[in-house]
């Protein structure tokens, strides 16, 4: 049995349905990331788990116990907020100890717990300061400390890194990952940043408009997005989603990409998904990630299905570790990721290798993946 289970959770606010039937589960020690654009309901979902917002229907269980009706403090959870929500009137130590104080933990024990957490997070020198005297990163650590000290069954993080600058965000991301690894706690984490989702999660739930679009491991989400939304949302640079048609005959299907002022490219599909035959001569969306579209030399050696086609390069972006080339296929700008030292000039034509094993196809009408 999973550690955290959410069954058919619905929440209405007036006539507006904010969560439209959420089903999720998470194993003990797992790291669930709820990701999605703003307004998708991910924070509301987190708040319902915390008990800060009520639910209209459904059930939330932690470790087999239904917690729907429990007060937040009775749910054995800890939460880190986007703004950190440090109590401005208390010192760092006071902030960390507040929860224990509320539970009537004796002062001596509290002190011990504070010291322990301060050591883990290296904030020992800050304990007597007020939150207003701390930097952003320090506040973040204190907020985590306040959660950690509780040693709860479940950690909830509400966009904890979104108020930090880029470098600090990367540092703290690693810190969180390390903490998770060393303490083995169960975490539910909300973010709108798909990189955080990918790097931290053991399970990701991609959400939109109060519904879970896809729930799976990061690899599943990345490699096998169930629909256009997930495909587009996860990954950076984003997956190329190119309008195309299915050509070929019988067993040998091919994908046909229109080009400006030149004849279309036709890429033969070796092991096309079975559903694709139904789309013969019909428009589909052809999805290929930039790293699956590369210079022939840089292409994955052992991929079973690679097709090469000449493409007109419009822009070249050397990014140091890689070079990105932009071409135009099916009326859209398409990004290819080449080796850093690929010798390529804008305005010229160059052959690009399509790794079709990694390609995905979507029905433009339903936006679902064709399997």
């Amino acid at each position: 049995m999973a550690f955290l289970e959410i069954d058919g959770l619905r929440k209405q606010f007036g006539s507006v349905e904010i969560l439209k039937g959420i089903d999720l589960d998470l194993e003990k020690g797992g790291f669930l990331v709820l990701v999605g654009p703003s307004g998708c309901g991910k924070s509301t979902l987190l708040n319902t788990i915390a008990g800060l917002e009520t639910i209209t229907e459904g059930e939330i269980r932690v470790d087999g116990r239904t917690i729907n009706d429990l007060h937040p403090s009775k749910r054995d959870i800890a939460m880190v907020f986007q703004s950190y929500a440090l109590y401005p009137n208390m010192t760092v130590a006071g902030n960390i100890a507040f929860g224990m104080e509320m539970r009537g933990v004796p002062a001596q024990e509290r002190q011990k717990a504070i010291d322990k957490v301060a050591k883990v997070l290296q904030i020992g020198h800050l304990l007597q300061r007020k939150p207003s005297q701390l930097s952003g990163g320090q506040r973040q650590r204190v907020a985590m400390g306040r959660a950690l000290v509780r040693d709860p069954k479940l950690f909830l993080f509400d966009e904890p890194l979104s108020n930090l600058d880029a470098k600090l965000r990367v540092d703290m991301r690693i810190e969180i990952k390390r903490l998770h690894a060393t303490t083995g706690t169960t975490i539910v984490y909300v973010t709108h940043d798909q990189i955080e989702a990918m790097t931290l999660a053991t399970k990701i739930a991609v959400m939109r408009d109060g519904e879970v679009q896809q729930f799976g491991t990061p690899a599943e989400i990345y490699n096998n997005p169930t629909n256009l939304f997930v495909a587009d949302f996860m990954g950076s640079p984003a997956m190329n989603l190119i309008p195309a048609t299915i050509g070929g005959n019988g067993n040998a299907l091919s994908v046909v990409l229109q080009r400006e002022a030149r004849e279309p490219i036709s890429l033969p599909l070796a092991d096309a998904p079975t559903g694709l035959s139904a789309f013969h001569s019909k428009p589909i969306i052809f999805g290929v990630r930039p790293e699956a579209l590369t210079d022939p030399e840089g292409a994955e050696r052992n991929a079973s299905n690679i097709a090469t086609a000449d493409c007109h390069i419009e822009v070249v972006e050397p990014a140091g570790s890689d070079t990105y080339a932009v071409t135009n296929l099916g009326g859209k700008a398409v990004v290819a990721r080449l080796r850093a030292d690929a010798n390529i000039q804008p305005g010229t034509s160059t052959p690009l290798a399509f790794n079709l094993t990694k390609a995905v196809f979507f029905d433009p009408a339903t936006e679902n993946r064709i399997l």
Partner: protein
Amino acid sequence: MSVIATPARQSTGGISARTVNRIVIYGLLALFALFYLMPLFVMLVTSFKTMDEIQNGNMLALPQAPTFEPWLKAWGETCVGLTCAGIKGYFWNSIKMVVPAVLISTLLGALNGYVLTKWRFRGHTLVFGLMLFACFIPFQSVLLPMATILGSLGRFGVTLRNATGFSFGLGNPTVNLVFVHVVYGLGFTTLFFRNYYEAFPTELVKAAQVDGASFFQIFRRIMLPNSMPIFVVTVIYQFTNIWNDFLFASAYAGTGDAMPMTVALNNVVNTSTGVVEYNVNMAAAMIAALPTLLVYVVAGRYFVRGLMAGAVKG
């Protein structure tokens, strides 16, 4: 956030535009300060004059032979009704009425604001609107019905005392005044706190909930310690209004042992068919206003800070 003073255009040599600007600004500020201080000046010089000088001289002229006599008289000798011991004794009457009234109304306002922003329920807007509109009721029209109710409460207090030996202060004029000022101060205190807490981060409340704090613990440990600015604003506002109230005070607490400062001052200043001692009146007025003046000067800094922190937002 100053703008006019930005040294944008600095001319070389002569008087810079900036200097002219500053002179104009300081000039205007000083001019208005004179306007505001003028009545205070009149009161001050008058309070140091003899009655002869007041009757024969110019009211704006400085006292020819300054005398402290009026102040001493106002403090310890002037007659408030038949008791001629000055107004000093009425400070305590006012304070024992103003302090509980201010604290209770402020505390209730804080609780109301807390509920109305952080624990919303259906219809919270209507409740707040109704409470806010209460600020506008003319006090003269509540004087009699309130007196009737206070009278009934007083009689109930007597019954209670006969039954239990304890009247809970019902019927006591000071308690009555506290009650009245709490009732009619709630609108403003709730407005101030509600608007302050509106901008108060809700995440702090959520965090405290997760930490296991109860409704009142959150209020006491999280909200109140972070409400200092608005607390000061509300206390000042309430203190001024209640201290200066005459209508309720004279109607509900006219007897010597409960009479607040305003009524005493009024009795010193107003006379129907007797001699008016303006110098004593002015001195008495200033003595009576000392607590409020003190509160303004000392807390003025916090006052602006408190307003800034959200008391006036919407």
